[in-house]
């Protein structure tokens, strides 16, 4: 997982690469958001879509791999719990319009399903911009603020070690 995120992958064209990274960004923001935030965003939608679950939420383990210093040989860091879900939005005729996927850390079935639902909605060009500005950017800003606050708290406890040069 950690390795794959930054790996250069061959894309058919730049457009594919751009849409993939845009999707990676919203999926990352959604996966890190709290269930409560997503639930309130869901209930605030002007119109909740019709959908069916393509794959109900299921919890499993994934092996997290890492590289020492980011460049060493990959090694298995350990397993983590992960939950995934897939949903399909359907229109009034019952035809599938968009398929969304959610992968989240932990074992919250609700979280994975909400991520998948928002992923599907964000693929709809009519809703995309609205959702990005009202949901994704809001969540991203909140996450950035939390991260900054945490970094600030930790910075206060930072200790710098240094050695005096002996004057000789």
């Amino acid at each position, binding site marked *: 997982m950690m390795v794959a995120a930054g790996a250069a992958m061959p894309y058919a064209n730049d457009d594919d690469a751009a849409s993939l990274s*845009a999707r990676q960004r919203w999926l990352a923001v959604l996966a890190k958001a709290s269930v409560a935030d997503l639930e309130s965003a869901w209930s605030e939608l002007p119109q909740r879509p019709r959908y069916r679950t393509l794959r109900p939420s299921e919890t499993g383990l994934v092996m997290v791999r890492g590289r020492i210093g980011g460049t060493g040989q990959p090694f298995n860091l350990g397993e983590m719990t992960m939950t995934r879900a897939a949903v399909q939005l359907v229109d009034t005729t019952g035809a599938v319009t968009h398929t969304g996927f959610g992968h989240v850390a932990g074992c919250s079935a609700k979280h994975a399903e909400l991520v998948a639902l928002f992923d599907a909605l964000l*693929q709809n060009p009519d809703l*995309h911009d609205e959702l990005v500005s009202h949901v994704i950017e809001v969540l991203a800003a909140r996450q950035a603020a939390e991260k900054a606050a945490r970094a600030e708290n930790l910075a206060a406890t930072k200790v710098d070690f240094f050695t005096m040069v002996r004057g000789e």
Partner: protein
Amino acid sequence: MSGLGDPQSAAGDFAGLPPGFAEPVHDAQACFRTILDGLAHPGRIQEMPVSPAAGLPSPLGSAAASVALTLCDIDTKVWLDDKLTSASSYIAFHCGAAITADAGEASFALVADPADLPPLDAFSLGTDQYPERSTTLVIEVAGLVASYGVRISGPGIRDTARLGVAGLPARFWSERAALNELFPRGVDVLFVSGTQFAALPRSTRIAF
């Protein structure tokens, strides 16, 4: 809006994909119990207790899909006959199983067109040390009856029973009878027809 590509392609290959079991764990357990019971009673025609969601890729049958959803997973390679190539994304998505073109290395073979069935020894028969490494065939047939057809006997059958399978080429029975000599090697067969199925494990002997 830029960067999202064509909305049609955004739905991708998943738009035509139906859901699998409604309750993946419990439905697979119910089907597993029934398949186990079917294998313990060769030739007994049974109804699959649970059907997967509607909209299966044609010509994948309901019972065949239930068997695949129940038994196939990431550790089993699945071979599909030419008519069932349409089902490869369904199997890959819901079972996580790899599709193989080599019948000899498949753990499961799904067959929708029995007339085009490869010779049975083209599938894996297992080895004497590891007979379980054989292929399990899931063959969609036109119909199943217990009142006429070949006489079968062996473990799980009191005296003899009959199993009539419609739409199966005649060579199947001679090829299957020839495999009896290789026991414990051989192939296990699940005949499926709509929502019904009947099992023909390798231990069953065939008389015409």
